[in-house]
């Protein structure tokens, strides 16, 4: 009973916050609303007795969404949304596509004939997953790991300055302040660090700071 109410609430929360993601002007709110949507889904997973997956989803998305905020602030001209703005294109087509895909999938969900075989309550899902990961699905697990490694290398190669066999090799000299002042180009920085050291725009400077 309590579980039911909770699940309906979580489902509603995940949908509502997902919708608000594209309806807010503030980039920070957009990213953290998405995180709220993920957290609600994560809680739903926990209720569906996939505790490990649910918690890992939250664990992953917390970091990911924060990095997303940092990127938003880095690249957007108006990250706090203090200026009203609309940054959409092909709006009607997008709405139509969204509705169509929802309708199609929902139809499958409602009309589809899925066998009714609920998981037994005493199943220890986490250890079962562990044996699966390092047993039958070892190859998939390893491939995922290799894919992630390749992604890391690729991301570093893409984000480092220059590229295509030039520039980015320049070692670990401290980068100069102005790019033209560098005798040797700056070292590679990966996406994560760049996000962390990101310069920010904040279109309304903190006049309220204690700086006086």
């Amino acid at each position: 009973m309590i579980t039911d109410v909770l699940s309906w609430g979580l489902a509603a929360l995940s949908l509502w916050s997902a919708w608000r993601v594209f309806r807010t002007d503030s980039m920070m709110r957009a990213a953290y609303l998405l995180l709220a949507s993920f957290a609600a889904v994560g809680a739903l997973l926990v209720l569906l007795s996939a505790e490990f997956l649910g918690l890992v989803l939250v664990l992953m998305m917390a970091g990911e969404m924060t990095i997303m905020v940092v990127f938003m602030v880095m690249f957007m001209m108006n990250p706090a949304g203090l200026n009203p703005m609309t940054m959409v294109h092909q709006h009607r087509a997008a709405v139509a596509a969204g509705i169509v895909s929802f309708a199609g999938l929902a139809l499958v969900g409602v009309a589809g004939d899925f066998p009714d075989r609920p998981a037994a309550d005493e199943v220890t899902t986490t250890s079962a997953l562990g044996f699966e990961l390092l047993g039958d699905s070892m190859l998939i697990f390893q491939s995922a790991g290799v894919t992630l490694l390749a992604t890391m290398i690729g991301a570093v190669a893409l984000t480092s300055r220059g590229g295509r066999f030039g520039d980015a090799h320049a070692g670990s000299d401290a980068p100069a302040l102005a790019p033209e002042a560098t005798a040797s180009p700056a070292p590679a920085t990966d996406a994560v660090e760049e996000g962390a050291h990101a310069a920010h725009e904040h279109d309304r400077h903190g006049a309220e700071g204690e700086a006086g």
Partner: protein
Amino acid sequence: MTVWAPAVAAVGVGAALVTGTWAVATLDTAVAGVVAGRGLHLRRAALAPLRRAALLAGRHPVTTERPDAPAWVVAGPLLLALAGAALSALPLAEGLAVADVPDGLVLYGAAMALVMVAVFLHGWAPNSVFPLIGAYRFVAQALSYQIALFLVLLGAALPAGSLGLGAIVEAQSELWNVIRQPLGLPLFLVAGTALSFWGPLALPDGEDLAGGTAAESSGRELLVWRTARAAVLVATAAVAAACFLGGWLGPVLPGPVWMVAKTLALLVILVVPAHVVPRVRIERFVSFGWTILLPLSLVDVFAAGVVALRTST
């Protein structure tokens, strides 16, 4: 009983949070007094946190120009709730936990990953420069310690063959993890100090930023934020006590006493550096995190794996 269980649990966690943060503040004041050359006045130190709290509780918060009000309201309570969630998975004695879930360690991990969100919200919300810089610093800091923190905890879970904190404690009945994995506890304490942004690693709330993410906080809001920071430190110490010092295990005295004593001892270790070790530069910490902390925690987890394999076969 089942109806009342959540209420009892909430009261338990709340009591742990309140006494824990009070203990942290008392220790902090006492150590500060000794370092300042004013001597050790335990009674005064024990009263000081209550006095400061009473002072802050009576102030009406002032706001800034166009803050992100919802974020500001959420940040402090969120951090406190996360510390509470972490504490709820901790067993005080055998079977005596609010929620000794089988994935307790993952629950702790998820809660501690969300700390980054709470701190970022707190720095972003006031629409002011220094808090925002503090928020950015914490993102850089969090990315540097986080992987190491989780790896070290995984190492502690290996001998138990379980992610439940109760099982992890029980697996230490013969040998505490602090001896079995000598790297584990020191690495966890460093990462935990960074996670609680305390003392030398209080970079997001640093003095050079005039208080960092808390620079624009006042009154009750500030009180909640300071309490929440101390609560995270308590959660760190308690998890370290459970994962590395054998939790409730110990001779003669009852289990909960051992758990509390070990947590307090670790709190002393965490609090003293705040008054003896100067602030670390963020750049230095980030490179330390990626080049020393992370490789060492990998070594730790591999060594723990080898030991676990040898003992199980």
